[in-house]
């Protein structure tokens, strides 16, 4: 699929994202729309616009689109189609998944166990649960960002209503020990919600979950489509007023064209996932190797490639702030993100880097979209040392 991603928002032949010699390296925020998603979206806007709950011909066509999409996602997740619903985002999937599990298990207790490095949507949901009278344990991580599975298991109690763990960390790419935590949760009779937003379509879905959430725009689908998969044993109960759509698990009229596009993209990227992961992993190794040779740059995450996502690498540059790095790399044509927050509006360091206990400022996250060319990575690596040195020179911290 190497050239497939050349079908960008500017039309066929135009590179995705930035012009010239640059490249888009922020797939962990959102992946450019996959060409298969784009084609499916356009087709489904024409034949999937009607209300899929109605009985006439146009409605049946929309229903067929929706059913087919649900079957594709269910097959990738190895569940029944009835277990899959499509909320409006990954965040909404998390909010519904967490609140619904807590509600369904309220008789058992109100204790929630999750990790300190989850997506903010999970941590905010946990805070809301605590504010409403529930109790929360946040399990810590090691310096590579990996959750301590023994501590997680030890935090499970008879009154634990839900355990919640990401499949992989969104800031440093560390794969979490989902299988070990799932085994502990199963033994304790606690449902496990896995936030697979960063890994679905990249690496195999870990088994053992009761509830799984994901977000289509992370795998090349359009925005506005989340995934909430609920196995029966989760005893999930909707935290919302009664709704007729999506089995009562997600509110409102389904976005059929986008759901169809999302599923088509998922099928496409899943078919390609192993080969593309291997290819991108080699590029990430190259970035890690070169970044580590830049003076006073610390590369984060596990050194073992088998312990992290294949397409994501994060490093911190001593004495620099992340925002300047992002701006300067943008001027050079490269779109990256920074998890650090030395800005006026957010005075806390990244909660992930804080939990890892590593250098928090001057942070750069590079996450490669599918189809990233080796040449684009090499061009990035050619400018990176100069950008870092120039910024240090301008800040008067060179040689400190």
């Amino acid at each position, binding site marked *: 699929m190497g050239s497939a991603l050349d079908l960008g928002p500017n039309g066929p032949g135009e590179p995705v994202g930035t012009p010239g010699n640059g490249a888009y390296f922020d797939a962990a925020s959102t992946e450019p729309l996959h060409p298969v998603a784009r084609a499916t979206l356009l087709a489904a806007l024409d034949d999937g616009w009607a209300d899929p709950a109605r009985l006439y011909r146009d409605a049946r066509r929309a229903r067929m689109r929706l059913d087919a999409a649900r079957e594709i996602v269910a097959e990738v997740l190895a569940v029944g189609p009835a277990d899959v619903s499509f909320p409006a985002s990954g965040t909404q999937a998390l909010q519904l998944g967490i609140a619904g599990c807590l509600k369904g298990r309220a008789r058992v207790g109100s204790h929630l166990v999750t990790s300190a490095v989850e997506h903010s949507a999970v941590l905010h949901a946990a805070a809301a649960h605590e504010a409403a009278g529930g109790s929360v344990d946040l399990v810590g991580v090691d310096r590579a960002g990996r959750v301590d599975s023994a501590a997680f298991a030890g935090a499970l109690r008879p009154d634990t209503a839900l355990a919640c763990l990401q499949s992989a960390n969104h800031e440093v790419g560390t794969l979490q020990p989902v299988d070990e935590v799932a085994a502990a949760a199963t033994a304790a009779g606690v449902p496990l919600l896995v936030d697979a937003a960063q890994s679905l379509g990249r690496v195999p879905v870990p088994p053992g979950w009761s509830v799984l959430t994901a977000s289509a725009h992370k795998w090349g689908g359009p925005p506005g489509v989340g995934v909430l998969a609920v196995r029966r044993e989760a005893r999930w109960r909707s935290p919302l007023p009664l709704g007729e759509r999506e089995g009562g698990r997600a509110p409102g009229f389904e976005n059929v064209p986008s759901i169809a596009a999302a599923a088509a993209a998922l099928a496409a990227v899943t078919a390609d996932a192993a080969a593309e992961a291997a290819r991108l992993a080699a590029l990430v190794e190259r970035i890690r190797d070169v970044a580590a040779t830049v003076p006073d740059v610390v590369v984060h995450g596990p050194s073992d490639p088998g312990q992290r996502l294949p397409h994501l690498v994060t490093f911190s540059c001593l*004495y*620099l702030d992340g925002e300047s790095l992002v701006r300067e790399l943008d001027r050079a044509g490269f779109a990256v993100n920074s998890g*650090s927050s*030395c800005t006026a509006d957010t005075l806390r360091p990244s909660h992930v880097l*804080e939990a890892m206990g*590593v*250098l*928090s*400022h001057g942070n750069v996250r590079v996450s490669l979209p599918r189809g990233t060319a080796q040449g684009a990575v090499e061009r990035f690596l050619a400018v990176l040392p100069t950008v870092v040195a120039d910024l240090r020179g301008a800040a008067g911290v060179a040689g*400190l």
Partner: protein
Amino acid sequence: MNLPPDARLTLDTLGRRCPAPIIELARHIGDVEPGEVVAVLSDDAAAALDVPAWCELRGQQYLGAEQRPVGTAYFVRRVQGA
């Protein structure tokens, strides 16, 4: 380690965001003799991560932190030859 150690030099970085506290530390660690202690006074939460991380990168000895009425003091002992 008993805190607070007897700091030879205190760097007041209150109100300054990361990475300013460790830049000040890097600029002034040489102002004390090996074995002496520099205190970095900061109200930036990131200093709790960055001061120990800087010490590790530079081979300096991080001694610990202590709450102050305003901010936190982070103590670093200058290491001979580092």
